[in-house]
């Protein structure tokens, strides 16, 4: 963090082009405010723009690193049949899938892991939007069902980080049937008396939103995340109206009662840990905590139960 890296270099670059000794990928341009950010600063800020607070999309692995305690373990997932419809548009789906798998180093769009969040045991499933738009495939359904089963087995809460454009069109009605399938996964967790928390990241749309993502005990979203069922363009074409400011953004959903809270990436880990411990360790004596700059007031009975 110095003047040169923070301000001068980006300006020099925009004026004269990138100096040869500085590879282009060391600098990132914020898609929101368009300012340049040095890669190390961006990583330190958990891929949140230090200038405007824009939450950039991150991959599943990075997401888990940012949220879970070190040492989380990836779960091997049962393999779903690849290309069940032998779908071909301008390209073969099997080729698209192979390419995505090679690039991402994972079988499908969701990574499942178990570990802890500030010491609280948890099972997490994280979507990777860069994997075919985080779209819902049989493999994604498999990941969600596996995560739910693991949570039940470990008596751990299930936390799903969503990022999805919706259906995997190349899997047709099989993709559609992952909606009821994923809903069953949420039922398994809830019936076992375990918390099911959804963290909606940018973007969360279509069939993912209209199934497991909207059935959480808690709905959290990252600031500015696009969340909705229908695509903005489809809505505009249908109703022929201009969409309201901030439409389908996390803050809009919060105002409409669809979310519990909008939480910055840097506060996600502590927030999740607090929710889990409130639910799972109701007897623990709590110090009046200072979180996010506000004082959390104890509930009227909190003192009494803490004495017992």
């Amino acid at each position, binding site marked *: 963090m110095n003047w040169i890296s923070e301000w001068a270099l980006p300006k020099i670059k925009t004026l004269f082009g990138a100096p040869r000794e500085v590879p282009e990928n060391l600098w990132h341009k914020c898609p929101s405010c368009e300012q340049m950010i040095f890669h190390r600063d961006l990583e330190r800020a958990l891929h949140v723009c230090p200038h405007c607070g824009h939450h950039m999309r991150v991959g599943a692995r990075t997401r888990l690193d940012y949220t879970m305690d070190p040492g989380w373990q990836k779960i091997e997932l049962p393999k779903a049949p690849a290309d069940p419809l032998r779908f071909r548009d301008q390209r073969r789906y099997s080729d698209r899938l192979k390419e995505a798998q090679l690039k991402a180093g994972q079988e499908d769009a969701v990574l499942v892991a178990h570990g802890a969040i500030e010491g609280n045991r948890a099972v997490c499933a994280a979507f990777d939007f860069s994997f075919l738009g985080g779209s819902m495939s049989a493999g994604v359904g498999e990941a969600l069902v596996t995560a739910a089963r693991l949570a039940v087995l470990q008596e751990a809460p299930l936390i799903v980080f969503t990022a999805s454009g919706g*259906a995997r069109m190349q899997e*047709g*009605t*099989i993709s*559609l049937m992952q909606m009821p399938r994923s*809903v069953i996964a949420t*039922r398994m967790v809830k019936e076992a008396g375990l918390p099911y928390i959804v963290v909606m990241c940018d973007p969360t749309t279509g069939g993912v*939103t209209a199934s497991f993502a*909207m059935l959480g005990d808690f709905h959290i979203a990252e600031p500015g995340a696009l969340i909705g069922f229908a695509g903005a363009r489809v809505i505009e074409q249908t109703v022929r109206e201009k969409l309201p400011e901030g439409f389908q953004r996390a803050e809009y959903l919060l105002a409409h009662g669809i979310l519990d809270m909008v939480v910055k990436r840097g506060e996600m880990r502590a927030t999740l840990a607090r929710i889990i411990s409130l639910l799972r360790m109701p007897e623990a004596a709590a110090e009046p905590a200072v979180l996010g700059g506000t004082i959390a007031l104890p509930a009227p009975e909190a003192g009494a139960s803490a004495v017992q």
Partner: protein
Amino acid sequence: MRHFLEFEKPIAELEGKIEELRRTTDAGGIDVADEVGKLRDKAQSLLRTTYAKLTPWQKTLVARHPDRPKCLDYIRGLISEWTPLAGDRAFGDDAAVVAGLGRFRGRSVAVLGTEKGNDTESRVKHNFGMAKPEGYRKARRIMELAGRFGLPILSFVDTAGAFPGIEAEARGQAEAIARSIEAGLDAPVPFIATIIGEGGSGGAIALAAADRVLMLEHAIYSVISPEGCASILWRDQAMASTAAEALKLTAEDLKRLALIDAVIPEPMGGAHRDPEAMLAAVARQIADCLDPLLPLDPATLRGRRRDKFLEMGRHAVA
């Protein structure tokens, strides 16, 4: 006046000729009974061969045929003592979703469906079968009601999909659909869904997370419309017919993929050419599916329903 689809043009021409000849006879001209009979045979055989090998795109057009029997036609034909119910108890009533109680072959049932309407006025009234959150919330309410009183649930699905609108999003369209799917999966009573026309994406599965999912022979059931798929994957709406092929959205394909439970054959030339026969066939199939489910206890029903959906997409089908 009969509405002919583009690919039915040769049939339409033959039927036009028959009509013309009959008018000549009526006007006291020469007797043309022989000629009419021959033409009628020809038209019938053309209809049979055309409908025996409809392409997925042609089936899409038949599934959306304006004269095809709609949800309310099935309710009028199959359900006695029909008692419609209304409202989601929170915001309003959505006429795109029809829900109520009645008797199917003497037995009390809860009935749900998406209604497209059959003329301009009713289409507007029912919002072309595209439901809003209050519609799915009404569906969920009726499913829960059915569960409390042990009534089997019958649904008739015919929708292009959930309504894409600003207000619908603001009131939680996604949540309403998710809860409706959940209510179907959790129902402690037998649940039979019939895709009678268009099974459009989330708006369809919201009313079809059932023990038995039946599909009419020329109905379609898909995650996206062929036009929508074509414009996204081919960047060309004109490729809709190719997309329809690739999406495997026909009853035959979906039965083979084990995503639906049974295909109900349609009268020759499609449901709209003989609605009475279609209704009778649907009633028979529903009764056949319902009977073995009636003795099952709630836990068994729910368990088997879950197991069925949990398997979907797990196995490759050649």
